[in-house]
């Protein structure tokens, strides 16, 4: 199954040129770009592994693209997401995030149920 997290998962996988254009957009807003990777893109999995700290003070996309290349080489079977962080007062959060790499075989999840009282069921999303 295709994990559809991020801003552009319903489009064909972005080319490096398209990724670079999005990085330029983020940098133009003064956002710090970072890369994270994981082999478990569970919808509630918040803390993916960081590929270094966010790249503050970058001037152009080339630096990020170099890091992305290195991250892909080190973790070819992981998901990699690119995030752009806005430190403006009142935001102080990610303003854009999208997938920039997927493993050849995507992860699949399924629903696990526990019967509760009445007709209630308690659900967990688990690896298929």
């Amino acid at each position, binding site marked *: 199954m295709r994990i559809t997290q991020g801003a552009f998962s319903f489009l064909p996988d972005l080319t490096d040129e398209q990724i670079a254009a999005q990085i330029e957009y983020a940098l133009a807003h003064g956002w710090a770009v970072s890369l994270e990777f994981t082999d478990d893109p569970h919808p509630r999995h918040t803390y993916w592994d960081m590929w270094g700290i966010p790249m503050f003070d970058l001037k152009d996309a080339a630096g990020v693209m170099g890091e992305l290349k290195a991250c892909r080489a080190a973790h070819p079977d992981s998901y990699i997401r690119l995030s752009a962080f806005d430190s403006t007062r009142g935001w102080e959060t*990610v303003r854009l995030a999208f997938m920039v790499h997927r493993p050849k075989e995507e992860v699949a*999840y399924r629903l696990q149920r526990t019967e509760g009282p009445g007709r209630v069921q308690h659900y967990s999303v688990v690896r298929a």
Partner: protein
Amino acid sequence: MTSVTSLAPPATGNAPAGAAPQGAITDAKKRYAAGVLKYAQMGYWDGDYEPKETDLLAVFRITPQEGVDPVEAAAAVAGESSTATWTVVWTDRLTACDSYRGKAYKVEPVPGQPGQYFVYIAYDLILFEEGSIANLTASIIGNVFSFKPLKAARLEDMRLPVAYVKTFKGPPTGIVVERERLNSFGRPLLGATIKPKLGLSGKNYGRVVYEALRGGLDFTKDDENINSQPFMHWRDRFLYCMEGVNQAMARTGEVKGHYLNITAGTMEEMYRRAAFAKELGSVIVMVDLIIGWTAIQSISEWARANDMILHMHRAGHGTYTRQKSHGISFRVIAKWLRLAGVDHLHAGTAVGKLEGDPMTVQGYYNVCRERHNAVDLPRGLFFEQDWADIRRVMPVASGGIHAGQMHQLLNLFGDDVVLQFGGGTIGHPMGIEAGAIANRVALEAMVLARNEGRDILSEGPEILQAAAKWCKPLEAALHTWGSVTFDYTSTDTSDFVPTASVA
């Protein structure tokens, strides 16, 4: 003695040209002699008043009856929304009464609307109980809208001082935390209201939820009048909807939600429904505006205590927000709701089926989302407003919108909005899942293009057509709805600019 209905010419200071000078009577003996005085004479007009940082400010649009002077009418509005009664009372002298009087300080003719005036009134902070919209509204709109010397009155905008804003907790979740919980950044969220809104059984209803969320929407939604009718009791609805939500999460790897409408006849029943939604793991619950201010603040407290996003459907607002001459502007309702504490608020689409001039609607969005509103008359914002870091409300655009308008919607509202395509998802010729895919692909293609620096307003249709080449559901959506517009003249537009058309 003066007749209360023949309010004759007045005053000084910020009064319209030609107004005769007349102000408060300062001689206490004359001021408090039994009988009837003009409101301006009683001290409710002060054309030289400089509002304090801590004052609440209001601007009303009034239409005085024939022969009623606008300044005296303004003083009357100030009086009737604060301490005045129709006659002099000596018991005023037991109080520091000047503090308690609302003060009309400026009257301006409305541009291009003969007989209408904008009236500015300042209220001292002491008039208001902390953290109570019920108290605020009972004061500001309690009596004055029925006042006989006015043909009509409309509360256009308010400035809420920081000192007052800080007495409210505001949105329990807010845009930032909602996005962090959903793990979705950099694009509008997508939703759909389940249709038909009445008559589906719980099982059939949950099917629509599942298909739409699986197809790519973030949220589905109960409509305003889905409560617990004979065809679908609320517990059935909650159980089947959560089955659909969880199944869609497992199939997509994304956090999903369905706004479970917990609106009910009593607060006790609303809490019961809210508790069941929580037990089932829902991330969001919903109430309708018609439950009233106290109920809204109570359920907001509950949402805050239970980590729940609170969706507000503005059911009923059109009865008092739509006509320009009388009622309350929605921008004021939006300000009150941000204080009262909702996370989502239906704030208009501009391009859809429901009332809303584009710039006026953008004004509502700014009220919901900004940390600080500057004066912006073309968007209907009369006052500067500092929100004192209270959380941001996520506006919701819902009602008669479709994928073919994606460039207009993104251009008007930016990223922090929930775009809700109900008919535009469920009515798709290839099915509900296809309808959701069409909307999500159209959205992502448009965001990508905008970020690449393309001019989406002019190139939007091409961008959609290009995506439709590889996405059959989008092609079908554009074929079905591409030419649908709701291009009617708005009733509620700014008085300060020519009205823009959306076509």
